[in-house]
Structure formats: C-alpha cells, structure tokens
C-alpha cells in the first residue's frame, strides 16, 4: 500500500500557474546602480527636486549599509550591479482604454479585473507591471468621495503635499538596507488617502507583477486613513518562471489617525523557484504601519505562498492611546522555499492592544521561521498582547523555527504567548482513508483547519482564493465535499 507515500510525493509536484512570460515592448534603464541611475529614474518620472534629493539621501545611506545577515535564510550573493532598476512598457497609456492589448491579455490570464465592466467585484485595482503602474480602475467613483487612489507616480504630481507630508514617516529612508535601496530606486507603487470620516466603500487593490528578465521590482505603497476613516487594501503578486533569481524589495507604509483604520491584506504568490530550488523571487520587504491617533487601528493579514526567499515583518507602531495592532499570517514553504517572517508590535500609547496569529506550513525541504517582537515601552500602561505561533509540518525533510522576542518596560502590561508544532502524520491520513476520505482531501482538511483563524480575516473572495492557492502550492488538487 503506497497511496500515502504517493499523496505526499504529489505535494512536491506543485506547478506554478502564473509562470508565463508576456511579450511586451519594454524600455530599460542600463543595468546597475549609481547616482546617475537614481537621477535617471527620477527624471523619467518627472519628479520634483525634493523627491530626487530624498532618493539621493537614501542612496548615499544605502552605500554605507550592509545586507542584514541575521535572518534564518540562506542564499547566494545578490549582484546589485546586475539588475535593471527600471523597466517600463514602451507605450505608456493615457487611459485604461489605451492600455496595450498584450498587457490587458496578460492580466486577463491572471484573472485580474482591470476593466470597469467588472465593477461587480467591487475591487478597485491599480496594477503595477515591473516598474510602472498600468492603470487604475474606479477612479471616478473614488474621486467623488474625496478618496485618492492612484499610482505613486501620479500622486507625486497630483497630491505632492500629502506625499511629502507622509513619505518616510513610518519607514525612514535609512531604516534598513533593503528599505534604503527601495527609497533610492523605487519606481512605482500605490498611494491611497481616505479623508476624515470617510469609509472607503470598496476594497482597494494593487496587483504587482514582475515580467521582464533581470529586473528588480521596488514598489512603494503609502496609505493614509485620516481621522475616522477606514480603508481595506489588498495586494496580490506574481512573476514569470525564470531560472535566475529576481529581487523584490518593496516598502509599505500605513498611517491611521484618530479613530482611523487601515486593513492591509496580501496574497503573495511570487514565483517560488522549481522543485530543485532553481530560480524564484527574493522577497525582502519592509512593511510597517503607524497607529498614530487615538483609537486607531492597523491590521495586517498575509498569505505567503510564493518566493524562494521571504524576509518580511509587517509591523505596527502603536503610538496613539487605545490603538490596536493585528497581524494574521499564513506562510507556506514547499520544495526549497525559505521564509523568515513575522511581525513587530511596538506599544507606546496607553491601553494599546496587539494580536499576533502566525501559522507556518512547511513541506518538502521548506524552512519556515517565525520571528516576532513584542515591545512595550515605559508609559504604555495596560498594554496587552496575545501571540499564537503554530507550525505544521508535512513530511520529514522540512523545518519550522520560532523566534519570539519580548521586551517589556511597563509593569502593568499583560502578554500571552502560545506556540504549537504539529505534523500531518501517516496515522492521521490512514484514519481519514479508513473513513473513505482520500489522503489529498484529508491533508486539505487539516491544512484548512490549521489556517482557519487567519482566513477569517481576509475579505470573502480573497479567502476562497487563498484556500485554493495553498492547495496549489502544496499540490493538493483534490476537493473536500
């Protein structure tokens, strides 16, 4: 009887469905990084001087920094001079109607609703292809509510005051090696601002795709919820299958003022590399939210199934009194994928509350690390944190690692931490089989049960996507009745 072995072997035969390459005419910056390249990017985007200066400061800071090596990930050296820091489709569209049909066809293939006729989905999409934003849907409807949602480059021209006011206030240009790199060369990304008292009526969404070869993607996202505003934002990512590794170093900054709330959900499906660990995206991302105002809230939900390497810690600075931070995460590592991911909750204000729910799934030779920090500063009276970090192992060649750091300087703080590690065992699969359930379906049930708490926090249509994506990542194609 080898059905169980077969089922487990099937886990390693995941196929990456977004791995096609589209033939779109591109314009590149020469390979490599220098002040000239930084100036080139800034000029291409017709940026104001203050932004060029900010980029140059970041570049000079980056030159003095070294790549962080403390994470539990192993990869060959990255050749920062071998990367194109700017790649854009040659035909820049003036409106959605003018978007290159080849680009539209590519997004169709990915199932991204870029057309307004798909309004029913209620998702406004800003799509970023390699370095530039391709088009933003629903602009009119959002304009009427006073909500700005556009590509970052457009925002620089249309709302320079807002961008200048908030850019770098959560992730400074010299925050860390990858954030500094991003600050110097970021090419595009999304910008959203929701004015006081407005509840954004639809999910805002960005879809990132790396298409061109030897290209890095360095997008920058800035989202501000003003007093009493609410916005929910979704991010999705894919890349073609390429043998060489590609670098992705994004920065996301979230800001919530008094009674404001930003909810940020990611479904990250960058190409993870093949079964032997060849190729795949190196994902070094800095994501941080600042709950700046009283009663404000920042909530992160991430489903990480892609990338060869993931280095990512969506964090919350809980500065306002009574502010709330949340982090819900499912990270899947199959084949030779490695993830070092988690969060940082910094409690500064009084009565601040944070919740961390982290679910790591390892399969094949995957190595999954949770790294989290909960820090309570002096004066953050009655701060509360609840952390739960669970790991699920499938097979016997993968690994799960947990590094929780706790630093408390306030005696009234209350922290709870729970952690479990479990394994999908042969005896569990056989038990399910003896009741008529295939090992694939049984594995699915166990994985879904394991992820439930996180999926509940995703917008409905994304929760279904996430569940499917995890099945595909683990190559569990069966269905549960």
């Amino acid at each position, binding site marked *: *009887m080898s059905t169980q072995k077969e089922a487990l072997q099937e886990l390693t035969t995941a196929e990456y469905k977004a791995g096609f390459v589209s033939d779109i005419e591109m314009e590149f910056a020469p390979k490599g990084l220098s002040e000239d390249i930084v100036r080139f990017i800034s000029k291409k985007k017709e940026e104001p001087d203050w932004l060029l200066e900010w980029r140059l400061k970041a570049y000079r800071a980056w030159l003095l920094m070294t790549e962080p090596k403390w994470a539990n990930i192993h990869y060959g050296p990255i050749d920062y001079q071998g990367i194109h820091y700017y790649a854009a489709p040659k035909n820049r569209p003036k409106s959605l109607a003018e978007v290159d049909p080849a680009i539209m066809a590519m997004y169709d293939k990915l199932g991204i609703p870029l057309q307004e006729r798909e309004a029913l989905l209620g998702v406004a999409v800003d799509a970023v292809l390699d370095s530039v934003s391709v088009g933003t849907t629903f602009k009119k409807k959002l304009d009427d509510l006073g909500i700005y949602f556009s590509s970052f480059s457009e925002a620089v021209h249309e709302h320079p005051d807002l961008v200048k006011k908030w850019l770098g206030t959560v992730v400074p240009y010299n925050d860390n090696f990858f954030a500094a790199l991003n600050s110097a060369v970021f090419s595009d990304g999304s910008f959203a601002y929701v004015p006081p008292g407005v509840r954004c009526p639809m999910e805002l969404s960005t879809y990132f795709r790396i298409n061109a070869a030897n290209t890095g993607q360095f997008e920058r996202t800035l989202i501000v919820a003003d007093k009493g505003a609410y916005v929910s934002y979704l991010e999705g990512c894919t890349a073609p299958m390429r043998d060489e590794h590609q670098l992705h170093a994004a920065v996301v900054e979230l800001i919530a003022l008094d009674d404001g709330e930003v909810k940020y959900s990611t479904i990250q499906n960058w190409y993870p590399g093949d079964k032997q660990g060849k190729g795949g995206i190196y994902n070094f991302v800095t994501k941080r939210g600042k709950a700046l105002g009283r009663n404000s809230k920042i909530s992160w939900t991430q489903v990480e199934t892609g990338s060869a390497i993931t280095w990512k810690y969506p964090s919350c600075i809980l500065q306002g009194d009574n502010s709330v931070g949340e982090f819900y995460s499912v990270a899947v590592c199959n084949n030779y994928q490695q993830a070092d991911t988690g969060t940082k909750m910094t409690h500064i204000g009084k009565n601040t509350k944070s919740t961390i729910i982290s679910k790591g799934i390892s399969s094949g030779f995957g190595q999954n690390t949770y790294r989290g920090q909960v820090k309570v500063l002096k004066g953050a009276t009655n701060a509360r944190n609840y952390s739960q970090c669970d790991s699920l192992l499938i097979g016997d060649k993968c690994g799960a690692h947990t590094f929780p750091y706790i630093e408390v300087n306030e005696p009234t703080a209350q922290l709870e931490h729970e952690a479990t590690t479990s394994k999908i065992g042969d005896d569990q699969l056989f038990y399910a089989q003896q009741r008529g359930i295939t090992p694939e379906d049984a594995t699915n049930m166990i994985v879904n049960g394991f992820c439930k708490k996180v999926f509940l926090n995703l917008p409905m249509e994304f929760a279904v996507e996430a569940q499917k994506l995890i099945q595909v990542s683990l190559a569990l194609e069966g269905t549960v009745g």
Partner: protein
Amino acid sequence: MALLEVRDLRAKVGDKEILKGVNLTVNAGEVHAIMGPNGSGKSTFANVIAGRPNYEATGGTVTYEGKDLLAMKPENRAREGVFMAFQYPVEIPGVGNAYFLKSALNAIRRYRGQPELDAMEFMELVSDKTKLLGLDESFLGRSLNDGFSGGEKKRNEIFQMAVLEPRLAVLDETDSGLDIDALRVVANGVNTMRGKERAILVVTHYQRILNYIVPDFVHVLVDGRIVKSGGQELAHELEKRGYAWVEPAASPA
C-alpha cells in the same frame, strides 16, 4: 456467497511475518469474535483488512462481496462498506468532528452514486445517533478526538460506525481502556447495529466485552493462525483457563 472470505492469509509488518495462514468465513448477519494472546496477530489481521500501510499481505486472498479486497485502496475499502473501529483513534486538531464525519459520509455516498447530504440533512441524521452513544451535541463541534478522554474516543468510533452504516465492521480492541459503564454504552451501540445485512468482527483480548456483544462464533488466533473455533462457550472456557491450553495446537510438528 460469504460477505468475507479469508483464505490462507499471510502478512508481514515491516520484515516480520505475523499472519501465517489465516482462514475465516464471515456471512452477513453474523458476529464473530477473534480472541488471542498478546502478539498473536489479532490487530494485524484487523489492520490488513483495513489496508494500513506497512501491513503487507504476502500471500493468500481476502474476498469481500466477491471482490479482491487486498487490491483496493484503503479509502475504497471504506467506501465499499468496510469499517474499522481503531484501537487508538487518531486526533486531528483543527478539523471538526461533524465536518470530518460529513466529509466521510459524502465521500462514501459519492462513490456509490448517491446524492450528498447537506448540513441540515446531515445534522438530522446524526442527532439520533449521538443520543444512542450518550454523546452531548457540543461534541460534534469539537476537533476530531482532540483532547477527548479514552472513553469518548471509543464512543466516537462507534458513533462514526452508526452514521456510516458499514456492511463489515471490525472492532479492534474497542474494549481496551473502557470502564464498565463506558463498555455498556459502547456495546449497546454495537448491538443496535446488528442486523441481517451486516457482519461484525470483534477483535479482543478479554472475554468481558462478549458478555455484552454476544458472538455467534469465537475464533482463537495463536501465532498467526486460527487454532480453534467454536461458539460463545469457547470464550468462557478461555476466560477460565487462559490461552495456554489451546497453544500447543498452534505449533504443528
């Protein structure tokens, strides 16, 4: 045609040969007890019937409803109506008891070309059966066997059997670890399942459970072979005299 026909079944676990030629015929409507000392191969026999990996049949045949049972995947044996109540029921955290059982029932129904049950129909079906086993309804919402007491786990096995309504039920040491009250509840559940269409194989070390589930036939398994068969009185004799007196027959010259 017999429901289950076992002919000269040999099986090994890992490299060790455990079953050395088992012969057994079970007809629908019958209850058979398989008794034997520790290490005689009772549980191996139950697990070979169910198709547990690493329990490898090396010779002989097992025919179920005229079909070659050993050629079927474990899930298909279950769908064909073979059920095993586990000696050590497995815990699956995060998967609800009711959700698991509904998935199992619908997988079986799909296989048989029957329409699947929706949540309402399923709950209707199971509510009577929970009462039969003295289980609280809240038990359906808990994770499968997760944090259950030994008695709850065994009752859950019989509850699943009552819902899945197998044609051949194999109870692998279901009595082990049960106090007398729990044993009565479990036995009562099994007895309500007795019927013309169904056969039950009770694998046990002790005669005690057979006071409550009265078998039609009792077989004694020693060193991988059935060395003696009889009626209920054989169980009583074993209870009185132990297994030693039947063992010499187990070592043919």
